[in-house]
C-alpha cells in the first residue's frame, strides 16, 4: 500500500506566507490583516500581494505609520474576539510598538488570571543582507523570547513559513513570527493543504554523527550548505532547526548532542544575551553534559550594529565558510 502524500508545489517563502494568510482568512471571518502598505501596495516586501483584491480593504487593512497604535489595535481586537495578524514592515520597528507587545499583549492573559486572552499574530521580517543598515537589519528574537507570555517563531523554509503561520493564527496567545527578508525569494516544496506545523517542535534538517549544529532563520540554510562541504571532508554534521524559540523544544537538541558530543550554535543576532546562549545553557544543564567531548561553541553575529557596506555587512554575521571553519575546529581540536 502506498501512503498518500500531501500534494506539494514549489512556492517561494513569500508566496507560502501569503497562502497561509489566504487560507486562514477563507475559513475564519475573524482573521484579518493590519499593517502599513499591505493593501494595494502589497506589502513592503510584497508578501500580502493581491490579498486586498481577494478579501477587500476591510480585512486587509492599510494603516497609517503608527506601529504602537497598530499593535494596540490588534490587542484590543483580539480581546474583543477577532484574530488579527499584524505586519510590521521591518522587525526593527517593533521597537516603536514594544509597550503593546511586551506590557500589554504578553501580559493580559496572566494579569487577568486567565479570564481573557490575546490571540494575535505579529509578523515582521528581520535579519541583514540587504544593505539596509543598522535600523532595518536587526535580529531581535532574543528580546521577544525573553518575555513570558509571548511565543516566538522563526521559519527557515517556505513550508514552515506557511505551516508555522497557520499554527500561530490558531494559537490563543500572542505569537511573534520573525520572517527573514533574505528568505522571501527562496523556494521550496509547500503543501497545498492548510497543514499546520505545530509550535514548539524542533526539526532535524540533517543527521550526522560528528557534531550537532543548531541554527535559526537564514542560518539554517547556511548550516546545511556548510554541512555538505564538511561531508566532503568526512565530517558529518546534524543540523537542527528549533523553528519555535519559545516554547523551545529542547529534547531533540539534547538527544542529538548526546549522540554527537559536540554542539555548534549559530545565530545571526549579536552574541551577548543572544538566544543561542539560552540553547547553550539548556545543553549544559541537561543529561547531554556528560556526553560532551568539547565545550559548547557559539557562532554569532558580532556585537555591532549592522553596517551598510557589503563587505562590512557580510563580516558582521556568520557566513557559510565561518560555519565550516567553526565546525571543523570543534571536531579536530577536541
Amino acid at each position, binding site marked *: 500500500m502506498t501512503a498518500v502524500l500531501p500534494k506539494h508545489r514549489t512556492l517561494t517563502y513569500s508566496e507560502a506566507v501569503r497562502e497561509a494568510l489566504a487560507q486562514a482568512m477563507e475559513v475564519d471571518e475573524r482573521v484579518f490583516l493590519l499593517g502599513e502598505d499591505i493593501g494595494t501596495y502589497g506589502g513592503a516586501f510584497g508578501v500580502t500581494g493581491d490579498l486586498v483584491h481577494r478579501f477587500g480593504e476591510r480585512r486587509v487593512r492599510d494603516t497609517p505609520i503608527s506601529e*504602537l497604535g497598530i499593535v494596540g489595535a490588534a490587542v*484590543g481586537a483580539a480581546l*474583543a474576539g477577532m484574530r488579527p495578524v499584524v505586519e510590521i514592515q521591518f522587525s526593527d520597528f517593533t521597537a516603536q510598538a514594544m509597550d503593546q507587545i511586551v506590557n*500589554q499583549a504578553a501580559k493580559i*492573559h496572566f494579569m487577568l488570571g486567565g479570564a481573557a486572552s490575546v490571540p494575535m499574530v505579529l509578523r515582521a521580517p528581520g535579519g541583514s543582507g540587504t544593505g539596509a543598515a543598522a535600523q532595518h537589519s536587526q535580529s531581535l528574537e532574543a528580546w521577544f523570547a525573553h518575555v513570558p507570555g509571548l511565543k516566538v517563531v522563526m521559519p527557515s523554509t517556505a513550508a514552515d513559513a506557511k505551516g508555522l503561520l497557520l499554527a500561530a493564527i490558531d494559537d490563543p496567545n500572542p505569537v511573534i513570527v520573525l520572517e527573514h527578508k533574505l528568505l522571501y525569494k527562496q523556494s521550496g516544496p509547500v503543501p497545498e493543504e492548510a497543514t499546520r506545523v505545530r509550535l514548539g517542535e524542533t526539526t532535524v534538517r540533517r543527521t550526522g554523527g560528528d557534531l550537532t549544529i543548531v541554527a535559526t532563520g537564514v542560518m539554517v540554510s547556511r548550516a546545511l550548505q556548510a554541512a555538505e562541504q564538511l561531508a566532503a571532508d568526512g565530517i558529518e554534521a546534524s543540523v537542527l532547526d528549533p523553528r519555535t524559540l519559545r516554547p523551545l523544544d529542547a529534547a531533540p537538541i539534547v538527544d542529538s548532542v548526546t549522540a554527537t558530543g559536540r554542539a555548534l550554535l549559530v545565530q545571526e543576532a549579536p552574541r551577548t544575551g543572544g538566544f543561542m546562549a539560552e540553547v547553550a545553557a539548556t545543553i549544559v544543564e541537561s543529561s547531554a553534559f556528560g556526553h560532551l567531548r568539547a565545550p559548547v561553541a557559539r557562532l554569532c553575529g558580532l556585537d555591532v550594529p549592522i553596517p551598510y557596506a557589503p563587505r562590512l555587512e557580510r563580516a558582521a554575521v556568520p557566513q557559510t565558510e565561518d560555519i565550516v571553519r567553526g565546525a571543523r575546529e570543534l571536531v579536530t581540536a577536541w
Partner: protein
Amino acid sequence: MDLTKDADAARATLRTMWTIRRFEEAVDDLFARGLMHGTMHLSIGQEAVPAGACLALREGDYITSTHRGHGHCIARGARLDAMMAELLAKETGYCRGRGGSMHIADVATGNLGANGIVAGGVPIAAGAGLAVSMRGGDEVVVSFFGDGAVNEGAWHEGVNLAAIWDLPVVFVCENNHYGMSMSVGKAFKVERLAERAAAYGIPGVTVDGNDPQAVHDAVSDAVHRARAGQGPSLVEAVTYRWKGHSKSDKNLYRPREEIEAWREQDPIARFERVVAATLSEADVAACRDEARDAVREAIRVANAAPDARADSLADAVYARGDA
C-alpha cells in the same frame, strides 16, 4: 437620562458614587493598617466620572480602564467581593492574585482591563472598536484615561486610528489636574485637553467632571454618535484627585488650600444637594448605607477566601486551546 429628577436614576448614580467612595476608603484603611500590600491609586473625589459615564452604556459595551480604575470597574457592575479579594491577594479575586489593583477587571461586564501604562488602553480601545465595527455590531467602547495619558504616543496613535476608521469609541479623559506630580498647567500648552480632538477631526467637549449629569450628557451624546456609526469623540471631564498619586505621594507639589477648595466641590455632596427635591433624606441615607454594607460584606467574603495559590502560578502565562 435625567439623573437628578428621575428617582431611580438618581438613586443608581448616588449608590454608585457612594460605593466607589466607600470601597476606596476601605482600601485606604486596610492599606494603612498593613492588611493590604502592593500599591494602589485612589480616585476619591472623581466618582462622578465613572458613575455618569457608565450609565450611558448597556450590556455588551466595552470599557478600558486605568491604574486608577476601581471606580470604572464598580460603575460597570463588577462584584465588590471579587474586587476586594483581588486586592487582598486571594484566589477568588478577579485576577486570582495576578493582577492586583492596577490590573483589575471584570471581563464579564465588558471591562477589557485596567492598565499600569497610562495610555496603554487607548489603542486597545480602538482595537475593540475595530472588532465591533468589523462584525457590524452596535456596541460601544468607552476608553477611560487620565490627563497624563494625553501626551503619550499611544494616545495619539489610538485616537487617530479610531478617527480615520470611524470606530465606535468614546475617549473619556479624567482630567484630575496631575499626572503624578506634573500639573496640567505645566504639561500642556492648550487650555482644554478636549482641544486635542480637533487635531484628529473628531468632536471634543469639556465638562464639569464633578457633575455626574454633565458627564452623563456628554458621554451619552458621544455614545449615540458612536452607535450610529459616526465615529469617536473625546470627552474631557475636569475633576480632582483628593488623595496622592499613589501610596508614596507626600503631596509636595500642590498646596493644601487647593485640595481643600476641591474637597468643597465634592461630587457626592453636591449631587445630594441637587437631588434633594427628588430623593427623600431616607432615600439618600439608604444609598449611603447600602454602599457601606456592600463594601463591608465584600471585605468579609474576601477575607474568608483562600489566599492566591502559588502552585498554579505558571498556568495562566499562556492560554490553552481555542480562546
